[in-house]
């Protein structure tokens, strides 16, 4: 019988045409990005598709551009602060919602933490704009770049929380129990047993939080005040001016920064579990 089945369908997993679609899918996803990168080396003075020759000069232009530099620094500060805040809160929440009997209200807590994932960005943006406007009319306080940091921290929490939670669910509690049996305090158990095992999960979550914050455009654009120009906002502003391959060079640099964190997070979360 097995032989007959083998002759009739040599590969039970095959579905015709699927390999072709998958290959086209990769081509479609990568071609536009590769075109942007390739044209950042075009020596033409405009953004036409004609190739004028190779130059790396546009990168010198970008790196000498103080506005680009300032907006990158601001993006890095906001993303670092948001990553720190969201990762600490997400780690605590992940420890509180895994391993052990679910407590009453845990389901609602999970729902609350993942809320930012299902609210469209435009709605989050205008709702934070309304909140901060309300705060400043009532109290007269303008939070400055803290507006960006607080907003980014909030929508980064679920992105940090989910990988940490996944890692915790894969870890059993035997070692923690052993530590507790040996009279370790809960803090010591966490510091010397749970935490070292959890580091890959935390780093992976932190890397995702960093990317999400660093790349955010819609929400930031709505709540940023004058002078609070992050890198995506600066690039957006440049689209409205004369287009040169300098824009491609900036986009390429932005892609490279995200790429570094994406690969980092991927490696950390796919490493074989200890």
């Amino acid at each position, binding site marked *: 019988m097995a032989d007959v089945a083998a002759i009739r369908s040599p590969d039970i997993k095959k579905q015709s045409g699927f390999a072709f679609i998958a290959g086209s899918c990769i081509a479609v996803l990568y071609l536009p990005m590769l075109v942007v990168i390739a044209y950042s080396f075009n020596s033409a003075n405009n953004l*036409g598709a004609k190739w004028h020759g190779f130059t790396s000069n546009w990168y010198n232009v970008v790196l000498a551009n103080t506005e680009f530099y300032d907006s990158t620094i601001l993006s890095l500060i906001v993303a670092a602060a948001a990553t720190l805040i969201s990762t600490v809160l997400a780690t605590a929440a992940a420890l509180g919602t895994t391993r052990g009997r679910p407590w009453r209200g845990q389901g609602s807590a999970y729902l609350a933490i993942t809320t930012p994932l299902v609210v469209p960005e435009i709605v989050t943006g205008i709702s934070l704009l309304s909140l901060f406007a309300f705060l400043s009319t009532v109290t007269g306080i303008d939070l400055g770049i803290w507006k960006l940091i607080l907003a980014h921290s909030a929508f980064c929490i679920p992105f940090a929380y989910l990988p940490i939670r996944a890692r915790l669910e894969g870890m059993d509690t035997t070692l923690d129990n052993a530590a507790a049996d040996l009279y370790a305090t809960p803090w010591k158990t966490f510091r010397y047993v749970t935490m070292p095992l959890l580091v890959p999960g935390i780093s992976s979550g932190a890397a995702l939080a960093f990317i999400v914050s660093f790349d955010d455009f819609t929400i930031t654009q709505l709540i940023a005040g004058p002078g609070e120009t992050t890198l995506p906002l600066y690039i957006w502003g440049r689209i409205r001016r004369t287009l040169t391959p300098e824009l491609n060079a900036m986009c390429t640099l932005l892609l490279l920064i995200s790429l570094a964190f994406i690969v980092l997070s991927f490696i950390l979360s796919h490493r074989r579990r200890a």
Partner: protein
Amino acid sequence: MAEIKDMQRLDDARRRFLTLPAVLFILAFAALPLLVVLAYSFMKPATYGGVEWQFSTEAYVGFLFQKDIFDDSLTFSSEYLLIFARTFLFGIATTVICLLIGFPTAYHMATRPPQTRNWWVLLITIPFWSNLLVRTIAVMFIIRDEGLINTILLSLGLVDQPVTMIFTDFAILLGLFYSFLPFMILPIYASLEKLDFRLVEASYDLYASRFQVLTRIIIPLTWPGIATGCLLVFIPSFGAYVTPLLLGGGRHLMIGDLIALQFGSSRNWPLGSAFSMILMAFVMLALFFQIRKNAGGVSHG
């Protein structure tokens, strides 16, 4: 026994305490702002942006009716309703196209050997997290009148003048598809990866055709992943803001842009708030369907 119960309670209390800061933070900076918007949607617009603290249902009435400036009479106006309908259609179309391309891709990924599989996942993960603004700019470069496609077509002599693609509905749909395709692939892949292929083998033994195996075995068993993927594509494309702005050129509006417009140059915050609340109602509806279908999928499986 009593002691163990006490310890359990202590543990519960501690884990609640650990979860609390994240929940409070999100309530303060994600849920509370939505309540503010809900409140704003029932107020009157102030002249220079912001709201006047006066109860009014004007914003919701304004969604369907236009008020005559002279005698305050209301006439039905389908302007906003049409933009909502357009956005809904864009959302559905994007979801369907992403599903048609995304499912075969995810299936192909899940049937590779484990080592190759990881590379595929990385290849989809990179665009998944890459900057959406930059990716939209990339689409713009390619379909512009002076873009790559038109330059190639012109130099091959296939057309005499550039084919207008940018600032059309086609451009928006292409942009949405390109932006959110990875969101469809990864959840479906996660479901397919767990699929027990012995079931597929069994159905071939029972003389099922490839198509039958696909529609009666594989798709029903991976339904939770498909539903999640559809939701992850539908929600952001329904609320899209950057894509129609860049690729639609501001002439082909979607709700996202309409909302931003009310908070920007139109200075009608209550109307923008009302649009946001209607948008959220659609999102809730989509979530509700997903949860129901997911529950259904589990009971059948």
